[in-house]
């Protein structure tokens, strides 16, 4: 075991985050706050309730997740891609670190950033709309699980990417659209068929539903399916990363 090595990478990544705090924390919080301001305070009062909850409050958990999912991928993918790009990866590869330790360090730092971002965004939301958290411990637990899943996905993308463009591809063209259509702004029950059924093919729906349940105790899909989705969101990228490390693909020649 090399806990000092894990700590060194973790601290390095957190220092990088602090250096770019405007970009990595302030900007996403402001962007999300704009949603609260427009959809919550400005036109939210003219919208009808969603699942019995005031619209401005209803969208808070989903918007936090939107920010967490995109930032998790961005942070984790950049964290491992940048050393590949500059060549400093040589030091990580030559260090006495196991693949599990390397992943733990990079993903651990990215999860920390995502959780801080989510909590800051949540506090900001309370300035604009009414927010209640019915299950605070589960809210934090689900947040950590979802962050771990998407940070692992980001790490996988960073391992695989050969250019900055490839780094952006999945977050912009897959995750953001799926999240927008994942029931952030509406309850699945509010959709007409066939869209109600089609939407259920979107894995983000299960994450948003589960996370919103920790706030307002309402759910679009059964809670156990949300937990299953969180488990899969961790297991699938983890298996993909394990495959990369086993084959050495894209990391070592």
């Amino acid at each position, binding site marked *: 075991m*090399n806990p*000092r*090595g894990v*700590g*060194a*990478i973790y*601290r*390095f990544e957190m*220092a*990088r985050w602090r*250096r770019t705090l405007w970009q990595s924390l302030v900007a996403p919080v402001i962007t999300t706050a704009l949603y609260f301001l427009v959809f919550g305070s400005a036109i939210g009062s003219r919208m009808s309730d969603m699942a019995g909850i005031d619209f401005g409050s209803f969208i808070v958990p989903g918007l936090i997740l939107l920010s967490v999912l995109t930032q998790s991928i961005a942070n984790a993918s950049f964290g491992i891609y940048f050393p590949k790009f*500059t*060549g*400093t990866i*040589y*030091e*990580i*590869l*030559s*260090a*006495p*670190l*196991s693949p599990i330790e390397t992943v733990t360090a990079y993903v651990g730092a990215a999860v920390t950033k995502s959780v801080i971002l989510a909590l800051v965004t949540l506090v900001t939301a309370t300035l604009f709309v009414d927010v209640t958290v019915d299950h605070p411990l589960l809210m934090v637990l689900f947040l950590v699980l979802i962050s771990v899943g998407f940070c692992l996905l980001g790490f996988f993308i960073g391992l695989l990417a050969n250019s900055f463009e490839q780094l952006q591809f999945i977050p912009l063209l897959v995750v953001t659209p799926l999240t927008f259509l994942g029931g952030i702004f509406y309850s699945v029950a509010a959709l007409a068929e066939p869209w109600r059924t089609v939407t259920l093919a979107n894995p983000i729906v299960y994450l948003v539903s589960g996370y919103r349940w920790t706030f307002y105790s309402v759910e679009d899909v059964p809670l156990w399916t949300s937990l299953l989705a969180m488990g899969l969101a961790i297991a699938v990228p983890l298996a993909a990363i394990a495959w990369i490390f086993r084959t*050495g693909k894209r990391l*070592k*020649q």
Partner: protein
Amino acid sequence: MSETVIAIEGLEKAYAGGTRALKGVDLTIDKGEIFALLGPNGAGKTTLISIVCGIVTKTGGSVAVFGHDIEGDYRAARTRIGLVPQELTTDAFETVWDTVAFSRGLFGKPRDDAYLEQLLKRLTLWDKRKARMMELSGGMKRRVMIAKALSHQPDILFLDEPTAGVDVELRRDMWELVRKLQADGTTIILTTHYIEEAEEMADRVGVIANGELVALGRKDELMAQLGRRTFKLFLDQPMTSLPDGLSDWSLRLDDDGATLCYDFDSHAAETGIPQLMRKLDELGIAWRDLTTRQSSLEDIFVSLVHQGDRS
């Protein structure tokens, strides 16, 4: 009998594209020596170093560092190694102190500010410890790379083309450091294009060409084994062609016929020089001066690489 620190047996590397970068290299490195690996670009020097350090995966053979297999027991092996790669790759926004402290932590060593201070001072980096990497000159960055490689007090230091693009002063400092490290018991393996450096610095030399180790030995032995001497006579009267009586020797004329050159094996029982001198006397060829020159490592290197090309 000196202790073996690195044992390489039948090392093979075939890249995905099909290039065979290493074709069964056998090599052992002894404790405390300075070993120079010479070879042209693409010979496999960097591949060999990268495999030992864990950056490239071998496709055959075995490597052990202090008896630890580099794959089965990679932690024990890697902890003992420091690497200064060829490229100046640094984290632009990190300070000198942070990046060196990071390297030490990465290799699992506890924080030791006193050691790092001494290391940075030794590399004349102490004044720059708070500077960010992007603010440093190329030579300073190179010093930082060395400091990073030494941050965890390795027993083996790899220097991959350490003096490429380095000014005279830094080069001198670097060799001084290498000698001090050797005196402290560190084993040093370097690759270089500057053959005179290998000649000056190394205890042993290995020549690698097309993925094969074509020569290996103590520097002086290698030169004695492969060295040829050139015997030159500066003639009183230039000659347009070689007289028939001299056809027993492989002679050539240089400097528009003013110099007579004779290449011979310095280790042959019969060099043929006394006979040549008598013959010249017989033929009445007068000369005013003579030199002999031992071929350098560079000449040996070029001839070995060309042999490799032909085979």
